[in-house]
């Protein structure tokens, strides 16, 4: 439990720091940090309960994308603001590293294995973003009063 709290805080700090690197406006930091941390904790929880890395990344990405669209509609800002920094912890940096490492140390089958799992993770991120991207915009406007009639892309 304490471990999860540390993980949540670490993910929050990392996401906020990355928001700064990408030039996200300052008042979106808390929300962005929360979205990134929520995605990371969901990934960890699923992964530790035997869902497998790919499935866990898929669901975590879907959650991040859902939350990003939800808050983007409410803050009237582009989804990108929350999405890019939030997704960074899930990017398969470890897979890339291990496949290179095994390649250099001449452990070819291990290299192929970790390279392939990095690819699977990347595909899971793509799928997660694409699936939630297809949800109609009005689902994300639930509970908002419609002051302007035009539907706008976020």
């Amino acid at each position, binding site marked *: 439990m304490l471990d999860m709290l*540390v*993980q949540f805080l*670490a*993910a929050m*700090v*990392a996401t906020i*720091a*990355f928001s*700064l*690197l*990408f*030039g*996200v*406006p300052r008042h979106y930091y808390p929300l962005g940090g929360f979205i990134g941390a929520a995605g*990371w904790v969901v990934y960890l929880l699923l992964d530790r309960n035997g869902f497998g890395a790919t499935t866990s990344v898929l669901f975590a990405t879907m959650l991040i994308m859902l939350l990003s669209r939800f808050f983007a509609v409410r803050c*009237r*800002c*582009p989804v*990108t*603001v929350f*999405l*890019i*920094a939030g*997704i*960074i*912890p899930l*990017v398969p*940096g*470890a897979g*890339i*590293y*291990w*496949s*290179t*490492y095994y*390649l*250099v*140390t001449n452990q070819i089958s291990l290299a192929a294995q970790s390279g392939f799992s990095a690819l699977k993770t990347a595909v899971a*991120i*793509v799928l997660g*973003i*694409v699936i939630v*991207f*297809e949800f109609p915009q009005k689902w994300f406007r639930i509970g908002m009063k419609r002051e*302007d009639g*035009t539907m*706008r*892309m976020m």
Partner: protein
Amino acid sequence: MDERERKLAVMELAMEAGQLLLENGAEISRVSETMQRICRHYGVESASFFTLTNGILASSGSDADPLYAKVSYIPVNSGRLDWVCAVNQLSREIESGCYTIVQAKEALRQIRRMPGKKTGSTIAASAIAVAAFSLMFGGSWADCLASAFAGLFTQIFVIYVSNRYLSRIVGKLAGGAFVTFVCLLLQNFGPGQNLSNMIISTLMVLIPGVSFVNGIRDIASSDYLSGAVRVLDALLGFACIAIGVAFCFMIYNRVFGGMIL
């Protein structure tokens, strides 16, 4: 201003807004839609735009509108998401009729003058981010401390060497090698315990996240051409980082012999 000049000014305004969006990492559909909205609001019905990853083609011309054509090449700049947000907000306000054309142009100029992030805070942010990643990826507190230094040095390297003197590809190659080098140093002479954890965390600073996510979003909204280019850019980035890491490992092996770790 007569009607003809006014409509030409609208096209120029739309182009400028589109350029600001595109060079700071907005999706293709957002760029096209924003330009289209500006033109429609100011009454240039025949305007049409074709947006690519690094260029915009614009034209207008009909019985009502003057002939206008422009091709502009737009190299991808640093991702300033605050500019994207500001242009997004501006286009909303234009649509609700708060701006004349001249005022809108001035507003765009104001956005370009928005202060950037300071070098110091960028470097501090990457040190903090890398330290946090180290904890997230299962490192000890010692690794966390060492990673903070690695992130600090890497960002300094990126700002003062990669961004200034190197192309994108060579920059990523050199970045990957530099990260590995710094982490090897920190492990051998510094507080670092777990080399892999430190390298993986520090590599996060180099990862082309903006191209990757935007490429996926472009493909999702059927802008296959631009999406493919962006995804390719990201994949090339990943590959170059990996090659840089491998290169440094190989040299280390040659010089010190035997296994790494």
